[in-house]
């Protein structure tokens, strides 16, 4: 029984680690912010989920389980929101993908001298 | 070489790095960041000392959670450092809004400037 559980842990955690690797590769290789975002949110949620799943047999029941699952649920929630927020923020009005790298920063809408002009 | 020693060396390096940033980076926000780096280095060193101090506990067989005194002091220190960062950041934002600059370098006129101005 112990052996089976350990095997389960090894398989799940390894899978999770591979998803993290995939996410990282996506983050590095994908061409623009939105596709990178896509790679990231998929990969890290699944990765963390698998790691949590794999750790369940090693944790003490039931408090340890609750803690682990709560971590994953919260990570899911914040991951989803973050994806949404960042997507809203970086979406160019005309889906313009030829951004100049490191364009000079512009006035913050909150700064007093940026008179409202929109 | 144990992990604890490794973290101790890391703390020393963080202090050095932060000192360099605090002195050489012109932007005031970068100085605030550098101050936080030094602070984290100091706290880390304290944590290393706490971990080493846990040795007596391990000998006594009551677990190895480290010396709680430095840990408590680090918590206090973190809160104080946060307050310091908050004041510094607010001062800086206010300074930038009133004088349109975010740096402390070369900002002050030399002392006799006023008399120079009157001479010309």
């Amino acid at each position, binding site marked *: 029984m112990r052996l089976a559980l350990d095997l389960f842990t090894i398989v799940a955690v390894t899978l999770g680690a591979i998803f993290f690797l995939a996410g990282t590769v996506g983050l590095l290789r994908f061409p623009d912010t939105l596709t990178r975002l896509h790679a990231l949110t998929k990969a890290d949620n699944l990765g963390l989920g698998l790691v949590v799943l794999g750790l369940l047999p090693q944790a003490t029941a039931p408090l340890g389980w609750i803690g682990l699952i709560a971590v994953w649920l919260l990570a899911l929630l914040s991951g989803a929101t973050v994806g949404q927020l960042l997507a809203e923020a970086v979406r160019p009005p005309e889906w313009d993908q030829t951004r100049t790298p490191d364009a000079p920063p512009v006035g913050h809408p909150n700064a007093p001298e940026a008179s409202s002009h929109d | 070489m144990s992990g604890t020693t490794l973290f101790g060396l890391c703390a020393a390096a963080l202090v050095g790095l932060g000192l360099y940033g605090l002195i050489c980076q012109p932007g005031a926000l970068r100085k605030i960041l550098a101050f936080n780096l030094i602070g984290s280095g100091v706290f880390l060193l304290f944590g290393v000392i706490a971990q080493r101090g846990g040795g007596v506990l391990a000998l006594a067989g009551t677990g190895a959670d480290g010396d709680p005194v430095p840990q408590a002091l680090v918590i206090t220190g973190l809160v104080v450092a946060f307050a*310091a960062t908050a004041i510094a950041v607010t001062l800086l934002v206010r300074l930038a809004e*009133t004088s349109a600059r975010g740096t402390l370098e070369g900002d002050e006129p030399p002392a006799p400037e006023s008399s120079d101005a009157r001479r010309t």
Partner: protein
Amino acid sequence: MLAALFADLMDLGGLLLVIPLMLPVVGLLLALLVRGRTLGRFALALLLLGLAAAAVIAAAVATGDQALHYQLGGWAPPLGVALKADGLSAVMLLTTAVVLLGVGIYAQRGFQVPAGLPETRRSLAFWTLLCGIWGGINTVFLGQDLFTLFVALELLTFSAVPLVALDGRSETLAAALRYLLFALLGSVLYLLGAVLFYGTYGTLDIALLADLIAGADTLPPAVPVAAALMTVGLLAKTTLFPLHLWLPPAHAGAPPAASAVLSALVVKGSFFLILRIWFDLMPALLTLTAAQVLGALGAAAILFGNLVALRQTRLKLLIAYSTLAQIGYLFLIFPLAAGSSSVALTAGALQVVAHACAKAAMFMAAGLIAASLGHDQIRELRGSGRTLPLTVLAFGLGGLSLIGLPPSGGYLVKTLISAAAVDTGQWWLYLVVQAGGLLTAAYLFFVLSQAVPGPRQPTPPHERPRLAQQLIVLALALCALLLGLLPLSAVDLLEIGRPAAADSGAVSALLADAWTLDKLWASLWPVLIVAALVLAVRYRQQRKPPRPEGTSATLSPGRALDQLDHLLRQWPVAGLLLLVLVAALVQTMLVGG
């Protein structure tokens, strides 16, 4: 009945120390809830109570002839935190209470809540932060735990910095930010030193650490490093030359009442900790080279600060640079400690007290003059002596203490330092003290020669100062001036709680002939010559059309001095010097030890 109350209070013993610790803190918290005009009066009542508590503690220390100790929460160090009031702490507590009460009375007007308003930004910030400074500095004087002292230093800094920026002009904001960042650098270095002490000895209590350090056969390498880091960190907060980048703009830019507190008290908090480190924590480690490094910086501060002060055209900047110079005197005592630590410590403590009273009076006097004239340009002070006779008199009297003329506290300081310098064969210290006094005399008389003559101002003053404000400024100046007349037994109070030194009586021996006619005259005549010279220069300037570039006839050296000051106050340069100081101090202790 009062006597009975007093006796009851004395019976409390160490518990008394909780009062100066907690009274300001409670005041700080409650001030957030107090509304309207009550705020200023509430703070004043608190300050009066604080003065009473400080007096009771000083009396308890003096009558008991031993330091008061208290263990907070009943936990003994190393686990718990202890408080201690020796004679030195008691004197500092009393000085703080007196100066703060003076400032509190003075500030009743400027920081009053206008009728009909619940509060204003300036009033709430000033009174709460004043309580914060008070609580921080009292904790510094009483704390015996290096980490508690760190928190106290931060309380002091966080309360002092916003006061600098209270006027909200961009140059005061910049000054406050510089002050904050440099002070934070200082605190973090101090904390690093404390951490190393804990790592080496497993305690942060000063008394326990002192025993452990004194008892060790070989010095662990962490100790000199920690000592150097803590000292330099505290130097950055005390603004010893050449780490003075933030002092002039910050002290000159704050509102006068705040400048008085900053100059008179706040920089002394970190200096007090330097005293604790070098005289209580590890007296044996103060090698002659390390002491001479500190002494040389002090000497440089005296000469440099006074010379730059002479070049200033604004009164408040002049006073700020004079603070820079006066801080230098505090560090002259380190090389003297080799001869007699009690003489050195007495001189240091007297200088703290005398300068606190004198400088608070001078900053507030300058504030009244500036309020009345609408500016503080030294060359345009004409007539202010007629309009504000009491204030200009207070300014002058405070200045006499800075020069070191009898019977002021400054005179005692200079007598002690000079005599000890001659005794230990360190003539350069003697020369620096004398030269510093004369330079101070030069700028003081220059200011007075501008302010005193001239008719009553034709234009009505911008703001008529209250008589109470003028009187309290005068009273503080008189405190500084008459400090020297205190009986010698008052000086003995400083010795209480210190390990009985072999050289007890050294102070009284040195001070014994301070009041001979010879000595008095010797201190007086050079100052008179300087006064005459200043008057002559001024007379000549009046005959010729005034040259606008300031006081000094020697133009190019003066410009070079300004350039040097400007260079030293660049952030990277000051940072570099700070690092050099750390390295140098470690070096001296490793080699000398």
